[in-house]
């Protein structure tokens, strides 16, 4: 089943130099397990292809039902150098929530994960 992160998580993002961080938090505690299993570093790196110029780091915070991603080369130089509208990476959070992951049907239905709608 296809599941969109917007329907199972919330997020906040910020900046450190030319790196944006996105903290991704499960909407329900029981949804942290599939999020940590399927929202891998590689999956997120592929999602941001063409948007960031550097690599992705991933950290787990099971205590907060959260993952933290560092997106390097995300901010056109960052800080005052950046020409971007979102020079401080404030809305990379919702850009990550666009990500759609494939979760086996059995697992998705046990956890009552909402299916993505209108996603090709």
């Amino acid at each position, binding site marked *: 089943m296809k599941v969109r992160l917007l329907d199972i998580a*919330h*997020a*906040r*993002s*910020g*900046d*450190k*130099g*030319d790196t944006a*961080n996105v*903290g*991704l*938090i499960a*909407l329900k505690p029981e949804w942290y397990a599939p999020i940590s299993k399927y929202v891998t570093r590689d999956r997120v790196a592929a*999602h*941001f292809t*063409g*948007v960031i110029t550097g690599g992705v780091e991933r*950290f*787990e*915070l*099971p*205590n*907060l*039902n*959260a993952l*933290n991603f*560092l997106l390097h080369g995300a901010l*056109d*130089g*960052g*800080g*005052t*150098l950046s*020409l*971007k*509208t*979102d020079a401080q990476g404030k*809305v990379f*959070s*919702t*850009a990550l929530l*666009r990500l759609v992951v494939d979760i086996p049907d059995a697992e998705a239905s046990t956890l009552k994960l909402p299916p993505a709608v209108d996603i090709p």
Partner: protein
Amino acid sequence: MTEKKVVRVAGAQGFWGDWLEAPRRQAEGGPVDYLMLDYLAEVTMSILQKQKERDPSAGYAKDFVGAMESVLSGVAERGIKVIANAGGVNPEACAAAVLEMARAKGAAGKLRVGVVTGDNLLPRIDELLAGGHELKNMDTGEPLSLVRDRVIAANAYIGSVPIVEALTKGANVVITGRSTDTALTMAPLRYEFGWAGDDWDKLAAGIIAGHIIECGAQCSGGNCLYDWRSIENLADIGYPIVEAQADGTFVVTKHPNTGGLVSVQTVSEQLVYEMGDPHSYITPDVVADFTSIHIAPDGKNRVRVHGITGKPATDKLKVSIAYRSGYKAVGSLVYAWPDALEKAQLADRVLRERLDRLGLKFEQVLSEFVGANATHGPLAGPDAGKHAPEVQYRIGVRDADKKKVERFTREIVPLVLNGPPSVTGFAGGRPKTEEIVAYWPALIDKTVVQTKVTVLT
């Protein structure tokens, strides 16, 4: 049963430019022991340094004087203490302005202002470089000598120790320069509870309490994505308060009868804000572990935080260095339906061709189409903005050569008459050329930085 001592630290400013109403509301809306006002972002010090170069009595967050005036009776009559990094690059002038305001308001002698100095390394840079401190860029590894002649500010991030010292000396207002945001909250807790300098878990708890409230209402319902429609009365939002106990546990809450929300979700969003490696949140006082945080609901608009652990501090301090790094300008025009995006894209091609014909090459040129791709880029999808009622065309350039950037600023407005149709939104005229002050993060041995505390009345 003896009641456990609770110390209440109220976040009253989250950055320079935050809500002017917040300090007074925090001082008057219910019991608080400390007001914590955070004014400094990475680039703020360089702005303040530029102001000080023009006027030796400037160089601090002037908003703070008004904030102090708005809470003066609480401080002078009710014993509330204030901790703020409003001093910028001129804490002494900031203290003088606050004391002058107090005298003018008939509160002479009521304020004892502790001034923390020693973070400003600008006058010492050459001495430090000569002494073998390379001040290498933490991100790129480059030595500071590369940009030395363009440096305009250099400040060490200092921790809780001098703030505790000021409180111990009887200050009821503490003004620092570049202290860390989190120390502004941790220091009064450390002072009140007598936490030792190697009590890593408690110091880490104080730091995390500080991280939660350092961005003001961003932990109490502001900028909160989780179920955002259900967050009530943002117009009357309550700023956050930490109610801490000696064992390092604390509750995050806000004053009664205020808007916004304090919940596990609002606090969690703030916890992950600007996070790096959660295992090692490095501060001058302690290395805090964000994976140790336990967080649970504790009644309406109350969240309990406990279980925090910390590790010994490192022997370095971070240094924030600002240097001149060329110029930039950003301009925009608005194109209307029908085919707003297509018109804006044509305008971009036309403008870029004209820049080419003028022989103008820039270090960076960035075009965005607000309404289509400015925030999420290609993630917004191939059809994004196609049917938008209007699209803002936004183009910026960056270069070391000011003349080139200024020439660019003349090329945008002409498009109104000599480019694609249905264009408006040019009322601001030509965009301004701005000098870029860039940020150079470095590390320095702790032993090099000696802070000094003076209490003035």
